[in-house]
């Protein structure tokens, strides 16, 4: 492992926040949040980009001024010319920024340059990890599904920096179909951007009112918030120093503080868990994937 100190990163914003809110959010992150890396860019739906683009320049400048390393994230699923254009636009910045590939089409476009690899590119084993290291990947965010024994094996093999999602609803699926539009009885090409209404995704419950999933346009997420506060020492012991926090409408500056305190060993699991629960207002937490169990479970580590 090349990386010895813990790094806290903010994953790309997955939700379709009104563009001004998005700008204000990133300005506050730039100015106030204790984060090392901020991933930026639309990864779910290319239709959202035209609204956001006018603010890209100001956001990137502000993040740089705030001392954050910016990594540009690309779209997860490429279906048509609009999606291809979105990827090309991001890859064009590869000289100025590290670009995170979230699909093989981006890997193809970035071949020969150093790049970051996002969690929607499947890396389940050492051979695949080695392949991408040879291709130029310098930072790899692993899929939230990977259990601890796989993480350990990958960390043992890795020569580049590894990262796992430690906070936020976990992306579970991506589709050509828009579930937000469908919920509102609309077609995808006349979606009226209804995903904008749900800042953290739209909750999906079962017929018996069990909290189940959340939808965000083409994406399906866990309803529970992934939380690896208890597992941070185990991750650090195996050499995984990168912790990725996925943005939500809750106080992300506070969330960053909580994870920083835990990563720097200033606060205990119990203290930080209590603090996080206070920020989240009763949202369920999950860490089952890490423990090789159902992803939605929360397994108390008793560390």
């Amino acid at each position, binding site marked *: 492992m090349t990386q010895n100190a813990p790094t806290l990163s903010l994953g790309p914003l997955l939700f379709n926040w009104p563009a001004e809110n998005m700008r204000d959010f990133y300005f506050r992150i730039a100015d106030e949040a204790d984060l090392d890396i901020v991933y930026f860019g639309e990864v779910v739906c290319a239709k959202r980009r035209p609204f956001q683009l006018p603010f890209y320049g100001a956001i990137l400048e502000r993040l740089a001024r705030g001392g954050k390393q910016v990594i540009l994230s690309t779209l997860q699923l490429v279906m048509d010319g609009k999606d291809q254009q979105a990827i090309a636009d991001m890859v064009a910045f590869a000289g100025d920024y590290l670009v995170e590939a979230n699909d093989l*089409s981006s890997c193809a476009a970035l071949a020969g340059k150093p790049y970051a690899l996002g969690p929607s590119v499947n890396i389940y084993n050492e051979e695949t990890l080695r392949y991408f290291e040879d291709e130029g990947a310098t930072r790899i965010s692993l899929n939230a599904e990977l259990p601890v024994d796989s993480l350990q094996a990958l960390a043992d093999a890795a020569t580049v920096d590894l990262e796992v999602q430690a906070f936020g609803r976990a992306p579970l699926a991506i589709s*050509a179909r828009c579930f937000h539009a469908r919920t509102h009885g609309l077609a995808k090409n006349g979606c009226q951007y209804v995903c904008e209404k749900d800042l953290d995704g739209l909750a999906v419950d079962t017929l018996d009112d069990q909290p189940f999933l959340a939808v965000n346009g083409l994406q399906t997420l866990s309803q529970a918030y992934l939380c690896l506060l208890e597992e941070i020492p185990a991750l650090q012991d195996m050499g995984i120093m990168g912790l990725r926090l996925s943005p939500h409408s809750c106080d992300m500056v506070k969330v960053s503080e909580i994870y920083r305190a835990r990563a720097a060993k200033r606060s205990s699991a119990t203290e930080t868990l209590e603090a996080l629960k206070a920020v989240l207002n009763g949202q369920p937490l999950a860490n089952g994937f890490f423990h090789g169990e159902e992803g939605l479970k929360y397994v108390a580590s008793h560390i």
Partner: protein
Amino acid sequence: MTKLELVCPAGTPAALRTAVDAGADAVYMGFRDETNARNFPGLNFSRKELSEALTYAHARGAQVFLAVNTYAKAGNPTPWHEAINSAAELGVDALILADIGLLDYARHTFPNLRLHLSVQASASDPASINYYVERFGIRRVVLPRVLTVPEIGKLNSQIPIETEVFAFGGMCPMAEGRCTLSSYITGKSPNRNGVCSPASHVYYAQTDEGLTSKLGGFTINRFRIDEPAGYPTLCKGRFKSGGKTRYLFEEPTSLDITPILPDLLAAGVTALKIEGRQRSKAYVRDVVTAFRAAIDGTPEFTQCVGHLSEGSQNTTGAYGKKWL
């Protein structure tokens, strides 16, 4: 005009013989372990059975494709490597892979082995498909079910290899190989374990409101007395969102491309894939027979496969823009 190639499922040696006899141009299967995406009890092939299947199919002019289309486990790639080694030794006509590490292994270890890119790799655009062609020499891509027919037509003009598309059977509404819904609810996933919504986690309960189907303790659907009850595949249930109750992700439908078969041919598609390695011999016989007739233009072909669909409903899925 070139005919579409008919690629058919074989969950068992008996299903393989049935598919070949009914007119399959090619048959695909997996080994009996976690290396394939239909890792169900009682399904799939031993090495000896695959060897016999090759003899049977080749004697009748049919090809045999082996699917090793899950992702190798970190720390233990051996079962996956052994599956690839066996495929090469036994002389399968093509190996269907999804994992980059395994593609790399197969390419370097058996450079002459024909490789197909599994739908589980979810390669949906020219840039990614051409990348797989350049790096791993794949000769065919099984397209994810996220593209419309015009998009497929355009794609075919931008890649130098064959495309195979799903024609009939169960349909994922999600991009394949990018979905961990099943492991979120049950701890078992298609990518890692070769299963989705596994039967071991299914439970049915009869209540006053009707038959309730559950997966991992979660209610997936509830059926009135007059409704046919379906298997609780977790993306095909009724759920509540935004104050409404509906089939949010997908109705319990089956894919059926027979209405658009000429369009797919015109879009430059090489092969049609029938889903259903878990299905019965009778199902395989009926579907293969019907598609053989449809491809050959035999006049008696009409809606003879409709009754075989899940929930007796059909869709052309993402091939038509309406589905999106």
